């Protein structure tokens, strides 16, 4: 059995909306192990986004514990969490979320800035990653000058900048046409197979989820079903 990378243990997340308390997560248990490819599915309102935020160390639980590489991170300060997610987790968003004022390569180098990587190394790594996503000739372009697919490739390169263990892709193909979406997915699959990256794919698309080794179904803030996809 591979070692646990991210583990949610009886996690509750309670939001207050006015006087009403909303239990977004109700004792969620989830264990993601090294080099796994896991898909997370669930209808809207299932607590999927909240779960993703906790997995991505963007938020801390109300109750329960979150472990990253067996360290309890549920009580950490925001700035400590920032450093951890910068190093360990690469985010890919549905909206790409590139910084509009920066060029493609600058976007890719941005996460390294926050880790204090020396400039020389940033440029070297940035160029490597741009090459990996085959955007050498678009390197100096701003996001607005790139197609959706190209932007998502920049975002993937950015996610890999600090060589994280986990790639957390939240509806990465949601804003792309099916062909481009398939490319992105292939790329993630390749990262999983060749680079042994842990991939967490959040999607509402059954077909996409099939690429993953395992699918977790979320409903009412709990995992209701787990399926293993044989390849």
């Amino acid at each position, binding site marked *: 059995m591979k070692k646990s990378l991210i583990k949610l243990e009886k996690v509750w997340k309670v939001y207050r909306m006015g006087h009403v308390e909303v239990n977004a997560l109700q004792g969620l248990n989830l264990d993601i192990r090294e080099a796994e490819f896991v898909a997370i599915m669930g209808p809207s309102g299932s607590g999927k986004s909240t779960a993703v*935020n906790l997995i*991505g160390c*963007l*938020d801390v639980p109300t109750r329960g514990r979150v472990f990253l590489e067996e360290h309890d991170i549920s009580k950490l300060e*925001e*700035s400590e969490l*920032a*450093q951890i*997610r*910068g*190093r360990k987790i690469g*985010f890919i*968003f549905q909206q790409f*979320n*590139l*910084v*509009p*004022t*920066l060029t493609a390569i600058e976007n890719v*180098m*941005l*996460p390294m*800035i*926050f*880790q204090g990587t020396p*400039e020389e190394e940033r440029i070297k790594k940035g160029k490597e990653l741009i090459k990996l996503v085959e955007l050498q000739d678009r390197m100096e372009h701003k996001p607005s000058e790139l197609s959706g697919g190209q932007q998502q490739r920049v975002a993937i390169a*950015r996610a890999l*900048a*600090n060589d994280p263990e986990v790639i957390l892709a939240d509806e990465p193909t949601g804003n792309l046409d099916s062909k481009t979406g398939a490319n992105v997915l292939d790329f993630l699959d390749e990262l999983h197979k060749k680079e042994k990256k842990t991939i967490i794919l959040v999607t509402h698309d059954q077909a996409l989820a099939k690429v993953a080794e395992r699918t977790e179904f979320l409903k009412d803030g709990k995992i209701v079903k787990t399926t293993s996809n044989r390849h």
Partner: protein
Amino acid sequence: MNIYEIKYALQNLGKRKLRSGLTILSILIGITAIFALLSFGIGMQNYVDTLADEAGRDKLFIQAKGIGAPGTDENFFLSKEDIDFVKKIKGVNEIVGMYFKAAEIRFSEQKRFYFVMGVDIDALEFVEETFSIEIIKGRQLKKGDIDKAVLGYNYQLEDNLFKKPIRLGDKIEINGNKFEVVGFYEEIGNPQDDTNIYISSQAFEQLFPDSKDKFGFVMMSAQKGVLPSELAEKIEERLRKFKDQEEGKENFFVQTFEDALATFTTIINVINGVLVLIAFISVIVAFVNIMNTMYTSIIERTKEIGVMKAIGARNSDILIIFVVEAGLIGLVGGILGVALGYVVAGLGGSFAAASGFALLKPSYPISLVLGCLLFSFLVGSAAGFFPARRASRLKPVDALRYE
């Protein structure tokens, strides 16, 4: 802080050109005004310092108490006896009484009133040194010059005092008596001094027989090793007793050259200070403006802030990014403000010179330039601090969800 964050901030400024431009404009105005005003203040101070060095810090004056230029108070005078008395006080080196009176000047059908100064030719060098003026055209007055005059700089100018410029050898009438112009003094830099007419004390006594031995003011120098300020006190006390006047009610006062300059400098500094304060108000407005721009910018970029936090930016990184951005708005405004201030001060200086105030010459030491730039950067950074802190405290989850 690192260079990249600065670049990022600059790019953001560039992207929102109109708003950045307007915000920059608001600080530019204040910095322009402050830079120009201070450059005049410093120029003035330099002028005064040079003046003190040239004239010598050992000089003292006795003049009428009250407001007005020395010698203009018609009811005040120091007599020959007063001067002889002061001359004997220990520590006094040279001493000379100056005649000074307004007179009617006629030249080529025009009539004007200007001041005529009667100079003791024996003490001419001392007077010239004290006024720190030199002849630029023609010659000095000399002994026996009864119908000769040396004029201030402005008489040579066309359409200034008289329609026609006066040249060497021209004849002017002072209270109906003809005088030949034999020389001109260099420009002093203020209209009053540059319109003086200098004649010998002998000529003055003939011109104004009633004023013989009634001196408008007295100039003297202290002996080496004697402190002018101490000497001034001594003279004031002795002369008061000699003239039988009560303390505090004397009609004269003794002032060292440095004190006179200091008074002058104080007045200039106060005026300058008030103007700088007014300019400061516009910097405060700019401060608020930058703050407002930054708050708006942060709301617009909430999502971007969320993204940066997601990919590892700590609160302090976000804080620095936005403080630097605001600081850069200030700095760019400062650079443009200094450049514009340089132009404005230059134009102001030429304008002042054209109006006869050549002594109002701006000076731009490097410390003023750097000081203005640093100040504008700090104003910007300070204005950006609270918006930046708000940005840095955004929760990444909320910021990311923001549309």
